[in-house]
């Protein structure tokens, strides 16, 4: 499988602390990959590096063959990489529809259209995605008035609005009602079956095992294991990282 995202030897330091230590990670087109690890293992920092929200200290990152190591986040987003955040980032003062309309593929917006209004095609896409994410009846609500789970869904919808080829999802089920977790899993599988690759950071190991084709485990900033969900869950090093050494 050709790598859509390919990161080699990524290092990120905060002063004396090495948060990400020479990690190699790749995601193929249409693949659904899980990224797990104990608290503080560097998952979100690695996400920030991959999406160029944080600059890396060494290593290289390419997306669809384009070197994005020095690109700015909006340039990476325009190439087709979208992400969500551990702490939900929606525009609380704007309505659900406005949040979605704002998350269009800005690459296609030239200077003239920058001063235009939302067109019919965008409105149709908003409607269809809101329907898909079960948020249609909340389209005129302020995003700040939604529940945590609804805001998670909205953030995923905003990421999908830009028609990404790779979706980085940071804790997509965190703080979400358990009944909604299975709905989110269904939606993500459907998105993935339409050809969108997904890299998923999750604490919910069962969710990752059920959903992902491949799992990467981080511990203390370095890659600890990689393989299918069953291989990784049976790996003694992974068990030790999550539960401590046997007999401790």
């Amino acid at each position: 499988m050709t790598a859509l995202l390919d990161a080699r030897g990524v290092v990120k330091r905060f002063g004396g602390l090495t948060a990400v230590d020479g990690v190699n990670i790749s995601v193929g087109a249409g693949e659904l990959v899980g990224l797990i690890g104990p608290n503080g293992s560097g998952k979100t920092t690695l996400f920030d590096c991959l999406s160029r929200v944080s600059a890396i200290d060494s290593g290289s990152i390419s997306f669809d063959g384009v070197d994005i190591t020095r690109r700015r986040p909006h340039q990476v987003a325009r190439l087709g990489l979208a992400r969500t955040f551990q702490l939900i980032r929606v525009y609380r003062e704007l309505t659900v529809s406005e949040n979605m309309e704002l998350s269009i593929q800005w690459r296609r917006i030239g200077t003239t259209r920058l001063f235009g209004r939302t067109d019919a095609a965008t409105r149709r896409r908003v409607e269809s995605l809101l329907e898909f994410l079960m948020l249609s009846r909340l389209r005129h609500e302020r995003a700040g008035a939604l529940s945590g789970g609804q805001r998670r869904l909205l953030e995923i919808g905003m990421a999908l609005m830009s028609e990404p080829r790779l979706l980085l999802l940071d804790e997509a089920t965190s703080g979400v009602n358990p009944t909604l977790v299975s709905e989110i899993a269904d939606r993500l599988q459907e998105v993935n079956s339409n050809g969108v690759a997904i890299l998923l950071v999750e604490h919910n190991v069962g969710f990752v095992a059920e959903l992902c084709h491949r799992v990467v485990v981080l511990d203390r900033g370095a890659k600890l294991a990689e393989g299918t969900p069953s291989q990784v869950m049976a790996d003694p090093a992974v068990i030790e990282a999550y539960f401590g050494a046997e007999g401790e």
Partner: protein
Amino acid sequence: MTATRPSRPLPAGRPGGPRLRRVLVRVSFGLLVALAVLPALPGVGDSALFTLTLMLTSVAVAVNWNLTGGFTGYVDFGHAVWFGTGAYTTAILMSLQTNGPQVGWAAPPAIALGAVVAGALAAAIGRATMRLKGPYFSIAMLGTFVAVREIVRVSGGLTGGGVGLTLPPYLNRPLFYYIQLALVAGLVAFTWWLRGTRFGAALVAIREDEVGAEMRGINTTRLKVIVFSFAGFSTGLFGGLWAYQNTFVDPDIAFVEIRTVDAVMGTMLGGLGTVAGPVVGAVVLFWMREVLWANLLDYHLIAQGVLLIVIVLFLPRGLVGIVDPRGASITAMWRRWLGRGAHPETQEEES
């Protein structure tokens, strides 16, 4: 799935329901007509028109400040620098002399070039300062304001230094009044239109979460510099008009801190980040100063400070927030006053 906090459905686009927007448009049109016929009324002389023109200048500066401070969330403590730049460029061009007869430019091209110079300077300075965030940006702009004023003061050959420059007098007050009224009406209509465009929505996105906006593909630096340059251009335009009406500029009246303070206070009083807020706030603040504070000469700065505290505590969304369904209702305001309701800006995350 249900929303944890019920709220009235609102149409997408600008804040407020369609009925409220219709009322606001009619009220605005009525006010515009009233202001247009005002000079024809008996008893309205040049002095009153000059005062009204100054009020329109305050409105324009507040509306321009709101583009960066309100819509985009970049609180500019040096905004008056664009006013002074426009005023000085106009004054320099209009008072050019060569050993004898005055060969200064006519007012329209001089004022227009003053606006262009202010806009270009804003673009150059904005490219550097708008990379800074929060208080760092605000302080950098305050520093820019002080630095430019001192450069003007020491460049005596060009600017007249501390003595200033005198412009050729043209004291047609009604003409100035009508020009400014038309420009302010156009500026407010422009900001109303801009807020409804993708560009306007992207500015709000930058204010709410700049990293998130970048990650959604918005080139935040480009948009911030565009809006900052426009604000500089527009404030420079009104600076040029003011210089021509005042017939005199010196560093202490063209570059005066209170112009920025008034823009900030007027916008906050009316409603930060709204289209109508800076207009309402600047008008109320102007007349409070003219009418009320003229009688409290020794205490007017204290009154100004108290007003700012009251706005922040009890009207965080400003005067227009009272009639905006997304803002504070009078009932909610009273609840907060009585300590029975949460402040909208301090409500906890509900997830």
